Protein backbone atom coordinates (compact mmCIF):
# COMPACT_ATOMS: atom_id res chain seq x y z
CA UNK A 1 0.00 0.00 0.00
CA UNK A 2 3.00 2.29 -0.26
CA UNK A 3 2.17 3.23 -3.83
CA UNK A 4 0.59 6.63 -4.22
CA UNK A 5 -3.09 6.31 -4.98
CA UNK A 6 -5.52 8.73 -6.50
CA UNK A 7 -9.24 8.07 -6.47
CA UNK A 8 -11.72 10.31 -8.22
CA UNK A 9 -15.39 10.86 -7.49
CA UNK A 10 -16.10 7.81 -5.37
CA UNK A 11 -19.44 7.67 -3.53
CA UNK A 12 -18.89 7.96 0.23
CA UNK A 13 -20.44 8.28 3.65
CA UNK A 14 -18.54 9.95 6.47
CA UNK A 15 -18.62 7.68 9.52
CA UNK A 16 -16.82 9.84 12.04
CA UNK A 17 -14.85 13.07 12.21
CA UNK A 18 -12.22 14.23 14.62
CA UNK A 19 -10.43 17.53 14.98
CA UNK A 20 -6.93 17.48 13.59
CA UNK A 21 -4.42 20.27 14.22
CA UNK A 22 -5.80 23.79 14.22
CA UNK A 23 -8.01 23.84 11.16
CA UNK A 24 -8.15 20.31 9.78
CA UNK A 25 -10.27 17.24 10.27
CA UNK A 26 -9.54 13.55 10.40
CA UNK A 27 -12.27 11.49 8.75
CA UNK A 28 -13.33 7.88 8.80
CA UNK A 29 -15.07 7.35 5.48
CA UNK A 30 -16.93 4.38 4.00
CA UNK A 31 -16.80 3.88 0.22
CA UNK A 32 -17.91 0.98 -2.01
CA UNK A 33 -14.63 0.52 -3.90
CA UNK A 34 -12.08 1.20 -1.18
CA UNK A 35 -14.10 0.22 1.88
CA UNK A 36 -13.29 2.05 5.07
CA UNK A 37 -10.54 4.62 4.71
CA UNK A 38 -8.96 7.32 6.84
CA UNK A 39 -8.66 10.77 5.29
CA UNK A 40 -7.29 14.12 6.33
CA UNK A 41 -9.37 17.10 5.21
CA UNK A 42 -7.01 20.05 5.31
CA UNK A 43 -8.49 23.37 6.29
CA UNK A 44 -11.96 21.85 6.65
CA UNK A 45 -12.51 23.55 10.01
CA UNK A 46 -11.72 27.06 8.80
CA UNK A 47 -14.73 29.33 9.40
CA UNK A 48 -15.46 29.79 5.71
CA UNK A 49 -14.62 26.32 4.47
CA UNK A 50 -17.48 24.94 2.36
CA UNK A 51 -16.43 21.48 3.57
CA UNK A 52 -17.77 22.15 7.05
CA UNK A 53 -21.36 21.61 5.98
CA UNK A 54 -20.49 18.57 3.86
CA UNK A 55 -18.16 16.46 5.94
CA UNK A 56 -20.77 15.21 8.35
CA UNK A 57 -22.10 11.72 8.94
CA UNK A 58 -25.26 10.83 7.00
CA UNK A 59 -24.59 13.22 4.09
CA UNK A 60 -24.41 11.41 0.72
CA UNK A 61 -21.14 12.47 -0.92
CA UNK A 62 -18.83 11.81 -3.81
CA UNK A 63 -15.22 12.42 -2.86
CA UNK A 64 -11.77 12.45 -4.43
CA UNK A 65 -8.62 11.73 -2.51
CA UNK A 66 -4.97 11.00 -3.03
CA UNK A 67 -2.06 9.85 -0.97
CA UNK A 68 0.03 6.96 0.09
CA UNK A 69 -0.04 4.76 3.16
CA UNK A 70 -2.86 4.53 5.63
CA UNK A 71 -3.97 8.15 5.75
CA UNK A 72 -4.76 9.88 2.46
CA UNK A 73 -5.71 13.49 1.80
CA UNK A 74 -9.19 14.54 0.77
CA UNK A 75 -9.11 16.59 -2.42
CA UNK A 76 -12.73 17.28 -3.12
CA UNK A 77 -16.18 16.52 -1.75
CA UNK A 78 -19.61 17.16 -3.21
CA UNK A 79 -23.06 16.31 -2.02
CA UNK A 80 -25.06 14.04 -4.31
CA UNK A 81 -28.51 14.25 -2.80
CA UNK A 82 -30.64 15.76 -0.10
CA UNK A 83 -29.22 13.57 2.67
CA UNK A 84 -31.15 12.01 5.49
CA UNK A 85 -32.22 13.84 8.60
CA UNK A 86 -31.91 11.53 11.58
CA UNK A 87 -33.34 12.35 14.97
CA UNK A 88 -33.29 10.84 18.44
CA UNK A 89 -33.47 7.03 18.22
CA UNK A 90 -32.71 7.10 14.49
CA UNK A 91 -29.64 9.23 15.08
CA UNK A 92 -28.46 6.99 17.91
CA UNK A 93 -28.93 3.95 15.65
CA UNK A 94 -26.93 5.72 12.94
CA UNK A 95 -24.04 6.26 15.34
CA UNK A 96 -24.25 2.59 16.29
CA UNK A 97 -24.08 1.44 12.67
CA UNK A 98 -21.10 3.74 12.10
CA UNK A 99 -19.29 2.30 15.08
CA UNK A 100 -19.93 -1.25 13.87
CA UNK A 101 -18.35 -0.39 10.51
CA UNK A 102 -15.37 1.32 12.14
CA UNK A 103 -14.74 -1.60 14.47
CA UNK A 104 -15.39 -4.51 12.14
CA UNK A 105 -14.19 -3.44 8.68
CA UNK A 106 -10.52 -3.64 7.83
CA UNK A 107 -9.22 -0.52 6.15
CA UNK A 108 -9.28 -0.63 2.33
CA UNK A 109 -11.31 -3.82 1.97
CA UNK A 110 -13.80 -3.10 -0.82
CA UNK A 111 -17.42 -3.73 0.19
CA UNK A 112 -19.74 -2.55 -2.59
CA UNK A 113 -22.71 -4.64 -1.42
CA UNK A 114 -22.39 -3.56 2.18
CA UNK A 115 -22.21 0.04 1.00
CA UNK A 116 -25.59 -0.41 -0.65
CA UNK A 117 -26.98 -2.00 2.53
CA UNK A 118 -25.68 0.90 4.62
CA UNK A 119 -27.24 3.46 2.26
CA UNK A 120 -30.56 1.61 2.49
CA UNK A 121 -30.27 1.48 6.28
CA UNK A 122 -29.99 5.26 6.58
CA UNK A 123 -33.25 5.65 4.67
CA UNK A 124 -34.89 3.28 7.14
CA UNK A 125 -33.50 5.09 10.18
CA UNK A 126 -35.29 8.26 9.14
CA UNK A 127 -38.57 6.43 9.81
CA UNK A 128 -39.00 5.57 13.50
CA UNK A 129 -41.11 2.46 12.89
CA UNK A 130 -38.44 0.99 10.60
CA UNK A 131 -35.38 1.53 12.82
CA UNK A 132 -35.34 -1.84 14.49
CA UNK A 133 -35.92 -3.95 11.38
CA UNK A 134 -33.46 -1.79 9.44
CA UNK A 135 -30.77 -2.40 12.04
CA UNK A 136 -31.34 -6.17 12.05
CA UNK A 137 -31.17 -6.36 8.25
CA UNK A 138 -27.98 -4.32 8.30
CA UNK A 139 -26.35 -6.42 11.03
CA UNK A 140 -27.15 -9.61 9.13
CA UNK A 141 -25.77 -8.13 5.88
CA UNK A 142 -22.66 -6.90 7.69
CA UNK A 143 -21.89 -10.36 9.08
CA UNK A 144 -22.51 -11.96 5.71
CA UNK A 145 -20.21 -9.50 3.92
CA UNK A 146 -17.49 -10.10 6.48
CA UNK A 147 -17.72 -13.82 5.75
CA UNK A 148 -19.41 -14.63 9.08
CA UNK A 149 -22.90 -15.35 7.71
CA UNK A 150 -25.40 -16.71 10.23
CA UNK A 151 -26.43 -19.75 8.13
CA UNK A 152 -29.91 -20.03 9.58
CA UNK A 153 -31.75 -21.68 6.69
CA UNK A 154 -30.60 -25.25 7.23
CA UNK A 155 -29.21 -27.47 9.93
CA UNK A 156 -25.42 -27.45 10.24
CA UNK A 157 -25.57 -31.10 11.19
CA UNK A 158 -27.06 -32.64 8.09
CA UNK A 159 -27.81 -29.62 5.86
CA UNK A 160 -31.50 -30.47 6.02
CA UNK A 161 -33.95 -27.58 5.79
CA UNK A 162 -35.22 -26.39 9.19
CA UNK A 163 -38.36 -27.91 10.65
CA UNK A 164 -40.68 -25.15 11.87
CA UNK A 165 -41.59 -26.93 15.11
CA UNK A 166 -38.17 -28.26 16.00
CA UNK A 167 -35.88 -26.42 18.47
CA UNK A 168 -32.42 -25.48 17.35
CA UNK A 169 -29.36 -24.18 19.11
CA UNK A 170 -27.31 -21.49 17.45
CA UNK A 171 -23.57 -22.15 17.58
CA UNK A 172 -20.99 -19.51 16.65
CA UNK A 173 -19.15 -20.10 13.39
CA UNK A 174 -21.18 -23.23 12.76
CA UNK A 175 -24.87 -22.47 12.42
CA UNK A 176 -27.92 -24.13 13.95
CA UNK A 177 -28.22 -27.70 15.18
CA UNK A 178 -31.38 -29.45 16.38
CA UNK A 179 -31.68 -29.89 20.15
CA UNK A 180 -34.25 -31.53 22.39
CA UNK A 181 -34.54 -28.88 25.09
CA UNK A 182 -36.89 -25.96 24.71
CA UNK A 183 -35.09 -23.23 26.57
CA UNK A 184 -31.49 -22.37 27.11
CA UNK A 185 -28.86 -19.91 25.94
CA UNK A 186 -29.42 -19.63 22.24
CA UNK A 187 -32.19 -22.07 21.53
CA UNK A 188 -34.85 -20.94 19.08
CA UNK A 189 -37.79 -22.49 17.33
CA UNK A 190 -37.30 -23.40 13.68
CA UNK A 191 -40.11 -21.07 12.62
CA UNK A 192 -38.40 -18.14 14.35
CA UNK A 193 -35.05 -18.87 12.71
CA UNK A 194 -36.70 -19.17 9.30
CA UNK A 195 -38.40 -15.80 9.82
CA UNK A 196 -35.06 -14.20 10.75
CA UNK A 197 -33.45 -15.80 7.72
CA UNK A 198 -36.21 -14.41 5.50
CA UNK A 199 -36.03 -10.96 7.11
CA UNK A 200 -39.67 -11.20 8.13
CA UNK A 201 -39.96 -8.94 11.20
CA UNK A 202 -43.70 -8.86 11.72
CA UNK A 203 -43.66 -11.03 14.86
CA UNK A 204 -42.34 -9.61 18.14
CA UNK A 205 -40.86 -13.01 18.98
CA UNK A 206 -38.75 -12.91 15.81
CA UNK A 207 -37.49 -9.39 16.52
CA UNK A 208 -36.52 -10.28 20.09
CA UNK A 209 -34.80 -13.49 19.04
CA UNK A 210 -32.90 -11.71 16.25
CA UNK A 211 -31.71 -8.98 18.60
CA UNK A 212 -30.38 -11.55 21.07
CA UNK A 213 -28.79 -13.70 18.39
CA UNK A 214 -27.12 -10.80 16.60
CA UNK A 215 -25.90 -9.15 19.75
CA UNK A 216 -24.25 -12.38 20.84
CA UNK A 217 -22.67 -12.93 17.43
CA UNK A 218 -21.47 -9.33 16.99
CA UNK A 219 -19.99 -9.30 20.49
CA UNK A 220 -18.01 -12.41 19.56
CA UNK A 221 -16.52 -10.78 16.46
CA UNK A 222 -15.86 -7.54 18.37
CA UNK A 223 -13.54 -9.66 20.53
CA UNK A 224 -14.47 -8.08 23.82
CA UNK A 225 -14.28 -4.47 22.65
CA UNK A 226 -17.23 -2.62 24.12
CA UNK A 227 -19.35 -0.59 21.73
CA UNK A 228 -19.30 2.99 23.00
CA UNK A 229 -22.45 3.93 21.15
CA UNK A 230 -24.37 1.10 22.79
CA UNK A 231 -23.36 2.29 26.25
CA UNK A 232 -24.21 5.92 25.52
CA UNK A 233 -27.47 4.93 23.87
CA UNK A 234 -28.51 2.95 26.95
CA UNK A 235 -27.66 5.90 29.19
CA UNK A 236 -29.66 8.20 26.94
CA UNK A 237 -32.68 5.94 26.88
CA UNK A 238 -32.65 5.34 30.62
CA UNK A 239 -33.50 8.97 31.35
CA UNK A 240 -36.16 9.19 28.68
CA UNK A 241 -39.86 9.32 29.45
CA UNK A 242 -41.31 5.85 29.02
CA UNK A 243 -43.47 6.93 26.09
CA UNK A 244 -41.83 4.49 23.69
Amino acid at each position, binding site marked *: MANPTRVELEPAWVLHTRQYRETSMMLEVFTPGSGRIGLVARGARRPKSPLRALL*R*PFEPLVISWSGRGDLATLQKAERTGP*GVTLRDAGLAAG*FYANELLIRLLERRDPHPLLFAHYSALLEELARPERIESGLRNFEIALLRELGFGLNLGYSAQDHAPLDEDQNYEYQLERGVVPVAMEIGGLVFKGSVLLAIDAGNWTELETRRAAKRLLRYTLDYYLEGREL*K*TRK*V*YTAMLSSRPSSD
Partner: protein
Amino acid sequence: MAYSPLLQDLLEALRCLPGVGPRTAQRMAFRLLEQERDGGRRLIAAMQKALDEIAECGQCRMLSETELCWICSAPRRDASTVCVVESPADVIAVEDSASYNGHYFVLMGRLSPLDGVGPEELGLHLLEARMDSGDVQELIIATSATVEGEATAGYLASLAHQRNIQPTRIAHGVPLGGELEFVDSSTLSLAISGRLSLRED
Protein backbone atom coordinates in the same frame (compact mmCIF):
# COMPACT_ATOMS: atom_id res chain seq x y z
CA MET B 1 18.64 23.65 17.33
CA ALA B 2 20.98 26.05 19.10
CA TYR B 3 18.78 27.25 21.96
CA SER B 4 19.94 27.47 25.56
CA PRO B 5 18.10 25.06 27.89
CA LEU B 6 16.00 27.82 29.50
CA LEU B 7 15.03 29.23 26.14
CA GLN B 8 14.16 25.75 24.93
CA ASP B 9 11.86 25.26 27.93
CA LEU B 10 10.16 28.59 27.25
CA LEU B 11 9.58 27.74 23.60
CA GLU B 12 8.06 24.41 24.46
CA ALA B 13 5.84 25.98 27.13
CA LEU B 14 4.54 28.61 24.71
CA ARG B 15 3.48 25.94 22.28
CA CYS B 16 0.63 24.85 24.54
CA LEU B 17 -1.27 27.87 23.19
CA PRO B 18 -3.54 27.42 20.15
CA GLY B 19 -2.01 28.45 16.84
CA VAL B 20 1.53 28.64 18.23
CA GLY B 21 4.03 26.55 16.32
CA PRO B 22 7.83 26.56 16.64
CA ARG B 23 8.22 29.71 14.56
CA THR B 24 5.65 31.78 16.46
CA ALA B 25 6.97 30.51 19.78
CA GLN B 26 10.41 31.77 18.85
CA ARG B 27 9.06 35.20 17.90
CA MET B 28 7.13 35.45 21.15
CA ALA B 29 10.07 34.38 23.28
CA PHE B 30 12.52 36.76 21.63
CA ARG B 31 10.07 39.64 21.88
CA LEU B 32 9.58 39.01 25.61
CA LEU B 33 13.29 38.73 26.29
CA GLU B 34 14.48 41.58 24.09
CA GLN B 35 11.83 44.28 24.46
CA GLU B 36 8.93 43.27 26.69
CA ARG B 37 10.33 42.17 30.01
CA ASP B 38 7.80 44.32 31.90
CA GLY B 39 4.97 43.10 29.73
CA GLY B 40 6.14 39.55 30.31
CA ARG B 41 6.05 40.02 34.08
CA ARG B 42 2.53 41.42 33.83
CA LEU B 43 1.59 38.39 31.74
CA ILE B 44 2.97 36.03 34.37
CA ALA B 45 1.07 37.78 37.15
CA ALA B 46 -2.19 37.85 35.22
CA MET B 47 -1.83 34.24 34.20
CA GLN B 48 -0.98 33.13 37.71
CA LYS B 49 -3.97 34.91 39.20
CA ALA B 50 -6.34 33.72 36.51
CA LEU B 51 -5.20 30.11 36.78
CA ASP B 52 -5.45 30.16 40.56
CA GLU B 53 -8.76 31.92 40.87
CA ILE B 54 -10.90 31.17 37.86
CA ALA B 55 -13.02 28.06 38.17
CA GLU B 56 -16.50 27.13 36.99
CA CYS B 57 -19.63 28.95 38.10
CA GLY B 58 -21.52 26.74 40.55
CA GLN B 59 -24.74 27.18 38.65
CA CYS B 60 -23.97 27.42 34.94
CA ARG B 61 -20.34 26.21 34.67
CA MET B 62 -19.23 29.40 32.91
CA LEU B 63 -15.64 30.33 33.75
CA SER B 64 -15.76 32.60 36.78
CA GLU B 65 -13.68 33.66 39.77
CA THR B 66 -16.75 34.03 41.96
CA GLU B 67 -18.99 31.22 43.18
CA LEU B 68 -21.76 32.52 40.94
CA CYS B 69 -20.63 34.08 37.66
CA TRP B 70 -21.47 37.65 36.69
CA ILE B 71 -24.34 36.48 34.52
CA CYS B 72 -25.99 34.20 37.08
CA SER B 73 -25.70 36.89 39.76
CA ALA B 74 -26.97 39.80 37.64
CA PRO B 75 -30.27 40.84 39.23
CA ARG B 76 -31.98 41.99 36.06
CA ARG B 77 -31.53 38.86 34.01
CA ASP B 78 -34.36 36.44 33.42
CA ALA B 79 -33.70 33.27 35.40
CA SER B 80 -36.66 31.42 33.91
CA THR B 81 -34.88 31.02 30.58
CA VAL B 82 -31.73 28.92 30.30
CA CYS B 83 -29.67 28.79 27.13
CA VAL B 84 -27.55 25.64 26.83
CA VAL B 85 -24.26 26.04 24.94
CA GLU B 86 -21.23 23.82 24.43
CA SER B 87 -18.41 26.09 25.59
CA PRO B 88 -17.62 29.37 27.39
CA ALA B 89 -16.75 30.91 24.01
CA ASP B 90 -20.34 30.22 22.93
CA VAL B 91 -21.63 32.21 25.94
CA ILE B 92 -19.56 35.19 24.80
CA ALA B 93 -20.85 34.76 21.24
CA VAL B 94 -24.48 34.83 22.37
CA GLU B 95 -23.77 37.75 24.73
CA ASP B 96 -22.21 39.67 21.85
CA SER B 97 -25.38 39.20 19.85
CA ALA B 98 -27.05 41.36 22.54
CA SER B 99 -30.30 39.54 21.91
CA TYR B 100 -30.53 37.43 25.01
CA ASN B 101 -31.15 38.35 28.61
CA GLY B 102 -31.53 35.00 30.32
CA HIS B 103 -29.20 32.57 32.03
CA TYR B 104 -26.84 30.00 30.53
CA PHE B 105 -25.65 26.49 31.05
CA VAL B 106 -22.27 25.47 29.63
CA LEU B 107 -21.98 21.77 28.74
CA MET B 108 -18.18 21.84 28.30
CA GLY B 109 -18.57 19.47 25.35
CA ARG B 110 -21.35 17.58 23.61
CA LEU B 111 -22.67 14.06 23.42
CA SER B 112 -20.44 12.11 21.11
CA PRO B 113 -21.42 8.44 21.21
CA LEU B 114 -18.55 7.27 18.99
CA ASP B 115 -16.03 8.88 21.33
CA GLY B 116 -17.79 7.42 24.36
CA VAL B 117 -19.03 10.80 25.60
CA GLY B 118 -22.48 10.20 27.06
CA PRO B 119 -24.73 12.02 29.53
CA GLU B 120 -22.60 10.95 32.51
CA GLU B 121 -19.37 12.20 30.95
CA LEU B 122 -20.99 15.58 30.32
CA GLY B 123 -22.05 15.95 33.96
CA LEU B 124 -25.60 16.90 33.20
CA HIS B 125 -26.76 16.42 36.79
CA LEU B 126 -26.13 20.14 37.47
CA LEU B 127 -28.46 21.08 34.63
CA GLU B 128 -31.02 18.51 35.75
CA ALA B 129 -30.89 19.91 39.29
CA ARG B 130 -31.42 23.36 37.84
CA MET B 131 -34.46 22.20 35.89
CA ASP B 132 -35.80 20.33 38.93
CA SER B 133 -35.68 23.54 40.99
CA GLY B 134 -38.84 24.65 39.22
CA ASP B 135 -37.89 28.19 38.16
CA VAL B 136 -36.95 27.29 34.59
CA GLN B 137 -39.70 27.70 32.02
CA GLU B 138 -37.81 27.54 28.76
CA LEU B 139 -34.65 25.68 27.79
CA ILE B 140 -33.05 27.18 24.69
CA ILE B 141 -30.79 24.60 23.12
CA ALA B 142 -27.91 26.27 21.28
CA THR B 143 -25.64 23.31 20.59
CA SER B 144 -23.63 23.29 17.38
CA ALA B 145 -25.07 22.33 14.01
CA THR B 146 -23.28 18.99 13.82
CA VAL B 147 -24.69 15.48 14.21
CA GLU B 148 -23.27 15.41 17.74
CA GLY B 149 -24.91 18.77 18.47
CA GLU B 150 -28.15 17.34 17.13
CA ALA B 151 -27.86 14.26 19.36
CA THR B 152 -27.20 16.51 22.35
CA ALA B 153 -30.21 18.68 21.48
CA GLY B 154 -32.50 15.65 21.23
CA TYR B 155 -31.36 14.39 24.60
CA LEU B 156 -31.70 17.77 26.33
CA ALA B 157 -35.14 18.22 24.81
CA SER B 158 -36.29 14.94 26.33
CA LEU B 159 -34.92 16.01 29.74
CA ALA B 160 -36.83 19.29 29.52
CA HIS B 161 -39.94 17.58 28.26
CA GLN B 162 -40.05 15.24 31.25
CA ARG B 163 -40.14 18.25 33.55
CA ASN B 164 -42.74 20.20 31.62
CA ILE B 165 -40.18 22.76 30.54
CA GLN B 166 -40.51 24.13 27.03
CA PRO B 167 -37.44 23.07 25.00
CA THR B 168 -36.58 25.27 22.02
CA ARG B 169 -33.76 25.02 19.49
CA ILE B 170 -32.09 28.04 17.93
CA ALA B 171 -32.93 28.42 14.23
CA HIS B 172 -30.55 27.39 11.46
CA GLY B 173 -30.68 29.51 8.36
CA VAL B 174 -29.40 31.88 5.76
CA PRO B 175 -26.65 34.19 7.03
CA LEU B 176 -27.30 37.93 6.79
CA GLY B 177 -26.05 39.31 3.50
CA GLY B 178 -26.10 35.78 2.11
CA GLU B 179 -27.60 35.02 -1.24
CA LEU B 180 -29.54 31.78 -1.50
CA GLU B 181 -27.53 30.63 -4.48
CA PHE B 182 -24.44 30.32 -2.30
CA VAL B 183 -26.03 28.78 0.78
CA ASP B 184 -25.29 25.07 1.12
CA SER B 185 -28.31 22.88 0.51
CA SER B 186 -28.51 21.34 4.01
CA THR B 187 -28.67 24.77 5.63
CA LEU B 188 -31.21 25.91 3.11
CA SER B 189 -33.43 22.91 3.72
CA LEU B 190 -33.35 23.63 7.48
CA ALA B 191 -34.14 27.26 6.76
CA ILE B 192 -37.16 26.24 4.73
CA SER B 193 -38.46 23.69 7.23
CA GLY B 194 -38.05 26.27 10.03
CA ARG B 195 -39.67 29.14 8.15
CA LEU B 196 -41.59 31.88 9.97
CA SER B 197 -45.05 33.17 9.26
CA LEU B 198 -45.14 36.77 8.08
CA ARG B 199 -48.83 37.36 8.68
CA GLU B 200 -49.38 40.18 11.12
CA ASP B 201 -51.68 39.48 14.01
